[in-house]
């Protein structure tokens, strides 16, 4: 077997990092292998990928030791252009990978660099779009594409260049279930049709196990496991220690327990009083200025103390709906009541103390330099007295276990995504809202982080907060939510207990929900 990638005692430290990000990595990858790379957040998976395609060290400042040889070239001395044309790398965020204005131009971008003539470029564009199932999409702009479609275009633009190695760095984490499914199907197809070396970074153990013939497990910059997939799951203790999710149906006891989770939740300590709708919506309709009808005649009641998952395909209206709850959007038709009062009666400051909103990307809602300043930001805005600010700050920072990060990191800029997400939650919770809305709490997080974050929400729910989450994560829906609200194309399909939803395949299909 020809070795295509070889790490020789390789270590790397970014300019800004205090410690080594990769430590004495020794690794060989042979041609035609399908390698899965797993590990907790911050383990060094993305860094490893960038070392293979030459971004490190050719385009990144830092400190290096050892060598990486890829396709016979030492990455310290090779040319980025050559490596880039032979090794394809698909990133996590489908939005920022799209450079050009149309799909066709995006794919042609790399092909022009190869010096191909127009006829060949045209043929390859058609071929690549056919491969990813996007024939006829040549003239579409990125605004017209879903996340899954953008990601497929990214794969098409790389496959058109006929790479010898294909690396995919968490290609599905920002996608809805349909998008995830599309990418996984495509990978399956590529794997069967082409003799490529594929490297897949993912938190989804079931996919790694399904596709890969070898798994590399990273933690803290070191390889903890490097072996056949069949051996991988046997190391349950190691996997549990690193917070790697073992799919229920693949675990040693082999019993699917999702229904049991759901039934346990329904018998839990949560109190809901059906007589107190905390949010009431009546005949709500809303269209955006470009005439997209986002919501159509929605009537809904949300009761005090519920734990709800709002689910549906991309573009079904989930985010539009929740923005009406706190008055960020105004309905064109219909009414919304919060605690029995019309939502428009509340001022911005009043609303902030009733409804707390956590955005999907924590970077959108972290404004201050330090953890303390961030948590106190809302309280100072609302002119709370200093004593109250201090008390609430101490309460929240301990509740969300952020105190140790305050001591280690002088600025929020250096926090990992998972900790920033927790900080965003803290900054909202400190205002003690009755209702907490969280948009996609699990995107890009590893299994342990998801569990920790959801446990916090669960604890809050036990303290009688009403929790509403928008999520595509089937495990989170099954394990934590008590009720689901299903939206499709701006219509409310149904609100029902999660346990019933898990038994209804038709509704699951509408909501693009699957445990697979």
């Amino acid at each position, binding site marked *: 077997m020809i070795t295509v990638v070889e790490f020789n005692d390789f270590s790397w430290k970014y300019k800004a990092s205090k410690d080594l990000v990769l430590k004495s990595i020794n690794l060989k990858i042979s041609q035609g292998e399908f390698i899965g790379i797993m590990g907790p957040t911050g383990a060094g998976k993305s860094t490893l990928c960038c070392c293979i395609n030459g971004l490190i060290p050719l385009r990144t400042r830092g400190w290096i030791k050892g060598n990486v040889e890829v396709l016979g070239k030492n990455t310290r001395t090779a040319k*980025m252009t050559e490596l880039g044309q032979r090794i*394809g790398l698909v990133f996590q965020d489908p939005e*920022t990978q799209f450079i050009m204005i149309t799909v066709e131009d995006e794919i042609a971008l790399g092909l022009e660099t190869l010096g191909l003539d127009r006829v060949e470029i045209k043929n390859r564009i058609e071929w690549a779009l056919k491969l990813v199932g996007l024939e006829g999409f040549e003239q579409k702009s990125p605004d017209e594409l879903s996340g899954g479609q953008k990601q497929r275009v990214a794969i098409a633009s790389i496959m058109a260049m006929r790479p010898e190695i294909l690396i995919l760095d968490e290609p599905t984490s920002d996608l809805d279930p349909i998008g995830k499914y599309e990418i996984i199907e495509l990978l399956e197809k590529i794997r069967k049709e082409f003799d490529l070396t594929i490297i897949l970074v993912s938190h989804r153990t079931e996919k790694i196990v399904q596709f890969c013939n070898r798994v590399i497990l990273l933690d803290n910059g070191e390889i903890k496991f490097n072996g056949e997939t069949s051996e991988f799951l046997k190391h349950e203790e190691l996997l549990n220690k690193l917070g790697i999710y073992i799919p229920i149906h693949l675990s040693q006891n082999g019993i699917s327990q999702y229904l049991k989770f759901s039934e346990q939740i329904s018998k839990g300590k949560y109190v809901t009083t059906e007589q107190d709708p905390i949010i009431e919506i009546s005949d709500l309709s809303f269209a955006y200025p470009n005439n997209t009808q986002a919501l159509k005649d929605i009537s809904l009641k949300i009761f005090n103390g519920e734990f709800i998952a709002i689910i549906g395909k991309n573009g079904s209206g989930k985010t539009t709906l929740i923005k009406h709850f706190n008055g960020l959007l105004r309905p064109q038709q219909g009414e919304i009541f919060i605690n029995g009062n019309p939502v428009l009666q509340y*001022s*911005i400051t009043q609303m*902030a103390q009733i409804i707390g909103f956590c955005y999907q990307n924590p970077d959108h809602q972290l404004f201050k330099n330090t953890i303390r300043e961030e948590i106190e930001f809302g309280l100072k805005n609302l002119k709370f007295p200093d004593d109250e600010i201090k008390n609430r700050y101490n309460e929240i920072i301990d509740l969300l276990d952020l105190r140790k990060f305050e001591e280690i990191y002088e600025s929020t800029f250096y926090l990992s995504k998972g900790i920033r997400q927790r900080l965003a939650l803290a*900054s909202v919770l400190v205002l003690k809202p009755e209702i907490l809305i969280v948009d996609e709490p699990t995107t890009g997080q590893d299994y342990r982080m998801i569990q920790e974050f959801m446990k916090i929400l669960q604890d809050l729910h036990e303290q009688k907060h009403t929790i509403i989450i928008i999520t595509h994560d089937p495990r989170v829906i099954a394990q934590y939510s008590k009720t689901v609200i299903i939206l499709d194309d701006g219509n409310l399909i149904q609100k029902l207990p999660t346990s019933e939803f898990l038994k209804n395949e038709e509704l699951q299909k509408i909501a693009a929900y699957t445990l697979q």
Partner: protein
Amino acid sequence: MTKLHPITRISIVFILSIIAFLLSNIFDLIILLIFDLILGILTKIPIFSRKFRKIIIGFLIANVSVFIAWCLFGKISGKIIFFEAFIGNWHILITDQTIYGASIVTIRVIIMFFLMLFFFIGTSDRDLIHGLRSIKVPFAVSLIISITFRGLSMFQQEYSIVKEAMMTRGVEFEHASIPRKIYNFIQIFMVIIILMFKKTEDMAASIESRGIPFRSKNRTTYHYFPFQKKDYTILIGLFTLLLFSIYLTLINKSFVFLFLELF
């Protein structure tokens, strides 16, 4: 115009703008303005639609400032004095010639604004970039222009999201005092700058990962934008008009009076 080569469209804008500056007779400028508007109508650009009416009216109102600037500071002597005053060292003199000079400049600016508006509406981002590449503008420049266009819409969205996020934390924008508004905007700017750097890293990584160099002798161009007969006709016509305008400027005559003399 929409079927013209983007370089022809750029040339129309630039050359007519230069001509507008060469012309110093108000009647010539009015004719050029009419020609400009006819051009817009011929290109079937919906200048009378609600969206563009708002932009045009807004611009015309703002353009009044050009007229006012010339009236207040022009100090051109004339036959009729409409207004004169001294404020400190500032001598305000509004005469018939001041009004005439102010009108000329105002009409020039209006002509250039409409040319730019028609150009931007009638030319897609994509056409512009492909047009530039067809005349061998460096690839890096055209890619930067493409990313700038992407960035314009991306950051408008990001600004809205960040502002909303601040509102959910109780930040008032509408009813806040001016110092408070400035403080709030500073917070938004900081977030936008950080987001900009993060997007820079991601986009740059995406470009580098495809092995795209700044310059390459082997790079081909997929989109082919041939010049057509009408492009050549228009370009020749424009250059002829430009040369004629330069000639008229040198001999200090205007189109209209020359036309009247001849006929």
